[in-house]
Each structure stands twice: as structure tokens, then as C-alpha cells.
């Protein structure tokens, strides 16, 4: 029943949001990837809402979710087919390169999972720890007990732990469960970017976009780490992909729902949802569209507010900050200079990024006079927001930057690729 609830709710959401029928295989693939991601998100978010409202859910929660999904599918079944688009095909050798890159990433994923059977440090310290609490006890408060050390980050939203905890209850508490969920989100990240670019620019650009994600050296590692960064990247990328191609307010609402699932995945998700909303208003001046996007975020925004106000202890960044430390950090020019140096060094951090981020910086310079896009603006806003976040937070700057910068890049990278490929396609089409 859980799998049925997941599939039907995802398919129902996509049917409700996309008012035309998919016209070809690329569009069907993109929608299928979206349906799986949104289905997992809806399944996990409904679990959290049920637990906070009524306690541990039985089969009733999944029955309701499946019925709601089936009802949406039935209600929106008579859709007009979208007009078929002529898309640039890709050469056969590019498919071979893409398949080889996916095979390399898959092998790296397996190697890393075998070497680190409990995932990355944050996986067992935060995400799977929370999943174990959720799966092992009906006492929800113990999972977020302030009696644990702050490094367990009891204030973090719990989409991923809820998905893992529910899978534990179906398949048993095995280390394979979070690893399998990590595989799914890793594959979804590649699929959403590849197909998201391909549906707009054709298969050639889609495969190049997918290559940019799957061969980012830290991508396979972070996917196998079983942390929330890749799931957040998936929801942010779905929201971004929908916003660039939205033909109706319902698609913008669906983008908002995906951004909301990002908010329920990690605290940074709220920042990215805000950046998408602001960038949309800035670049399109379409306030009604922005309202539709905001309405889409509401279910998960409400869930997040419910959790933060009712259950979560304060975030360590706020708990350890005082007005005096914030002012002191803001006026400390050494701290800002250190941040600039750390950022500049990270751009050329070959171990985790290869040459991708350096190439993206060069491309940004080359395209600096191109008209601004919603996604480019959203990514730049998010990057700019991290300046004051890093400078004002209370921890040692070098430590928090070292432990978080690569994860933030992993969250943003798929959307940066979605933002870049149309500009590249346009530029090369003119020459």
C-alpha cells in the first residue's frame, strides 16, 4: 500500500499540475522522474503531519494518500496532448559518453557505500539517527530531545528521515534501506537535469547538462553519503525546471509544491524557495504567477512552521548567536576577507569539483551581458545570501565553511546547470 500511495500521489500531483499530456518520450521521462520525487516527498511529508497530529500512522494514512492520488489522476485524465516539439537530437557517441559517466558514478557510489556502510558523518549523526528514532518509538518528542548534543541538529526538517523510517517499517531496519533511497535520489537528480534540459533544448544539450551533474566529482560521494543534500537538490531542480517552462499557474503551483518539499528536506530549502520566488517576480513581473508558486509551497511551509514552533529546539545558529556577536561578526572585516579567500580557493577545489566550478565562473564572466533569467537570478541570490549567513553565524568560519561549502554547491549545482544550458544553447545558436 505504501508503494501504491507513493506512486499514485506523485502521478496525481503531476497530473493536477501539468494540464496537457506529454507529447514524447523526453517529456514522459521528465514527468515520471517528477512523479517519483514528488511521490516520495508527499509520502514522507504526510507521515510527518500524521505523526505530529495523531501519532504513528497505520495503513489509513497511505490509503488516504493513494485515494487522493487516484482521484487527482481521474479528475485530470482528459487532458489535451501538448503540441509536439522539434528537438535537436544527440549524436550516438554522446549517449555512449553519458552512459559511461553514469557507470563511473554508479561504481563510485557502490565503492563508497561499501567503504562507509553507515553513510557520511551527517547521515548517522543526523538523518538516519532521526529515522531510527521515528521507526523505533511512538514518542515523537524523544527524536527531537534537546537533551542530545546540538550536533544531532534536532531542529532539522525530516523529509528524508521520514522516508527512511517508513521504508524501515516495510523492509526492516537494514543498512540497505537508506542506501537504496540514496540511489533513488541520486538517479533522480541526474534524470531531472538531463530530461529538464532536453525537453527545452533537445537531447544534445540535455545529455551535456546531465554530464555536468554526474561527473561533478563530489556528486557520487554526496549521493552515497545518505544525507539530505542530493534530495534537496532534486526538489530545487524540479521547481526550477517547472518555472522555466511553466505554461499555466497550475505548473507554477506544482513548482511551489516541489520547492516546499525542499523546505521540508533541509533548512536551506526555505532560502532556495524564497530565491526562486523573488527571482520570478524580478524577471517576469508576474505577481499572479508568484502567488501561484507561493500557494504551492504552503502545505510544506505550514508543516515546517508547525514543527519549528511546536516540536523543534532552536537552531544552533540562532541559539548560539546574540545581538552582540552578530554585530561583532558583521563589523569584523577580517571575517569577510577570510570568507572571500575561502570562497576563491573553493572555486578551484579540484578534489571535489574537478574543473566544473572554475569553468562555470569563466562562463558567467563570458555571459555577463546576457539578459538575466529567473534561474540564474535565483542561483546568484542564493549564493549572495550565503555571504552574510557565513559571516554572521557564530561558529568558527573556517570550520563551518570547510564542512558545508561542498554540500551547498551540491544542492545548487543542478539548478545552476539548468540555468546555464539555455544561455549556452542560445549563444552557440547565434554563432
Amino acid at each position, binding site marked *: 500500500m505504501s508503494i501504491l500511495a507513493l506512486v499514485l500521489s506523485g502521478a496525481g500531483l503531476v497530473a493536477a499540475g501539468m494540464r496537457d499530456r506529454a507529447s514524447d518520450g523526453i517529456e514522459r521521462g521528465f514527468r515520471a522522474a517528477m512523479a517519483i520525487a514528488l511521490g516520495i516527498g508527499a509520502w514522507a511529508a504526510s507521515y510527518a503531519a500524521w505523526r505530529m497530529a495523531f501519532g504513528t500512522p497505520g495503513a489509513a494514512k497511505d490509503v488516504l494518500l493513494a485515494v487522493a492520488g487516484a482521484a487527482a489522476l481521474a479528475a485530470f485524465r482528459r487532458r489535451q496532448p501538448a503540441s509536439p516539439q522539434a528537438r535537436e537530437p544527440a549524436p550516438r557517441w*554522446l549517449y555512449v*559518453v553519458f552512459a*559511461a*559517466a553514469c557507470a*563511473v558514478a554508479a*561504481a*563510485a557510489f557502490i*565503492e*563508497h557505500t*561499501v*567503504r*562507509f*556502510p*553507515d553513510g557520511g558523518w551527517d547521515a*548517522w*549523526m543526523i538523518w*538516519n*539517527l532521526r529515522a*531510527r*528514532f521515528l521507526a*523505533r*518509538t511512538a*514518542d515523537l518528542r*524523544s*527524536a527531537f*530531545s534537546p*537533551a*542530545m*548534543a*546540538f*550536533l*544531532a541538529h534536532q531542529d532539522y526538517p525530516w523529509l528524508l528521515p521520514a522516508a527512511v523510517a517508513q521504508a524501515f517499517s516495510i523492509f526492516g531496519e537494514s*543498512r540497505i534501506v537508506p542506501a537504496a533511497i540514496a540511489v533513488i535520489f541520486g538517479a533522480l537528480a541526474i534524470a531531472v537535469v538531463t530530461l529538464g534540459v532536453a525537453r527545452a533544448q533537445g537531447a*544534445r544539450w540535455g545529455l*551535456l547538462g546531465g*554530464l*555536468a551533474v554526474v*561527473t*561533478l*566529482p563530489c556528486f*557520487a*560521494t554526496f549521493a552515497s553519503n545518505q544525507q539530505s543534500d542530493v534530495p534537496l537538490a532534486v526538489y530545487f531542480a524540479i521547481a526550477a525546471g517547472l518555472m522555466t517552462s511553466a505554461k499555466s499557474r497550475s505548473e507554477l503551483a506544482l513548482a511551489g509544491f516541489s520547492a516546499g518539499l525542499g523546505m521540508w528536506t533541509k533548512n536551506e530549502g526555505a532560502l532556495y524557495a524564497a530565491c526562486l520566488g523573488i527571482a520570478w517576480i524580478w524577471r517576469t513581473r508576474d505577481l499572479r504567477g508568484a502567488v501561484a508558486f507561493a500557494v504551492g509551497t504552503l502545505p510544506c511551509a505550514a508543516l515546517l512552521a508547525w514543527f519549528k514552533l511546536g516540536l523543534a529546539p532552536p537552531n*544552533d545558529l540562532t541559539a*548560539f548567536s546574540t545581538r552582540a556577536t552578530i554585530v561583532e561578526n558583521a563589523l569584523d572585516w577580517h571575517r569577510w576577507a577570510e570568507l572571500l579567500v575561502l570562497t576563491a580557493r573553493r572555486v578551484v577545489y*579540484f*578534489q571535489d569539483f*574537478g*574543473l*566544473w566550478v572554475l*569553468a562555470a565562473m569563466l562562463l558567467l564572466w*563570458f555571459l555577463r551581458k546576457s539578459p538575466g533569467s529567473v534561474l540564474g537570478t535565483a542561483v546568484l541570490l542564493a549564493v549572495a545570501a550565503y555571504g552574510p549567513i557565513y559571516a554572521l553565524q*557564530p*561558529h*568558527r568560519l573556517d*570550520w563551518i565553511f570547510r564542512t558545508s561549502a561542498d554540500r551547498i554547491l551540491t544542492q545548487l549545482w543542478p539548478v545552476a546547470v539548468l540555468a546555464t544550458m539555455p544561455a*549556452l544553447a542560445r*549563444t*552557440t*545558436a547565434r*554563432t
Partner: protein
Amino acid sequence: MSAGRVKGAMVALAAVGMLRILWLHFVSEPRNEARRTPIDDRYAAVRALIPAGEAGYVSDLPAATRLGQDPATPGTRMYLQAQYVLAPVVLRYDDARAPLVIVNLHDPSRLPDILQQRGLELVAQVETGLAVARPR
């Protein structure tokens, strides 16, 4: 920029990325990073002794619990790993007055010292350097 050049540059960047991934995971890590044993292996037996509620936690190595303390220390790792395995038991760090207390030691020979210093008596020795105790 021509489409051909862009395509060539992106494939070259992808090739560099693939080589880096292969080097890290199949050359560097096998040489330099030992394969981790599952965290459950060390702590699983304690779960049977403390199934639920709260327990104290003491150690011979400090864990980071406040701002400014280094969170990457072995003591922090030991505490958080014990918490990971023992969930849903909440481990109260440095609390030796709880009805049951996990004693988790980096140096197993310090068990008698720690028990005496913290006013504890042994309930069960579970693993080398890992015991359950209670206040005397």
C-alpha cells in the same frame, strides 16, 4: 563560441571529472581510507540492556556540546555513534546520575578509574571499553 567547441569543452570537463572520480574511489581511498566497520557492531549489545527512555553517558574523551568546542574529535564521534545505535534512548552527555549510565572509553584500562571518579558501579561490561553502570 561555436556549438562544437562548447560540446568539446564540456565533454573534456566530464572526462576530467570521471578520471578524478575513478582516482579517488579506486586508487586513493583503497590506499588511504580503511573500510569502516558498521557502527552497530560495537554498540548493539547495549540496546538489549537499555531499550527506551534516557540514559547517562560518560567517557574518557570529551565531546563537543557547546559553541567553540571542536566537533570533529574522537570523543564527539564516540558519543554520537553511541546515540545513533541506542536510539530511541536519549543519551544525556556527562550525566553520571541517571539510573543507567553508558561508559564509553577510548582507553579501556581507565574503566575502574572512571567508575570510581564518577561514583558508579558496573552493571555489565559489554565490549572492550564499553560498559553499562549505575550510580553507587
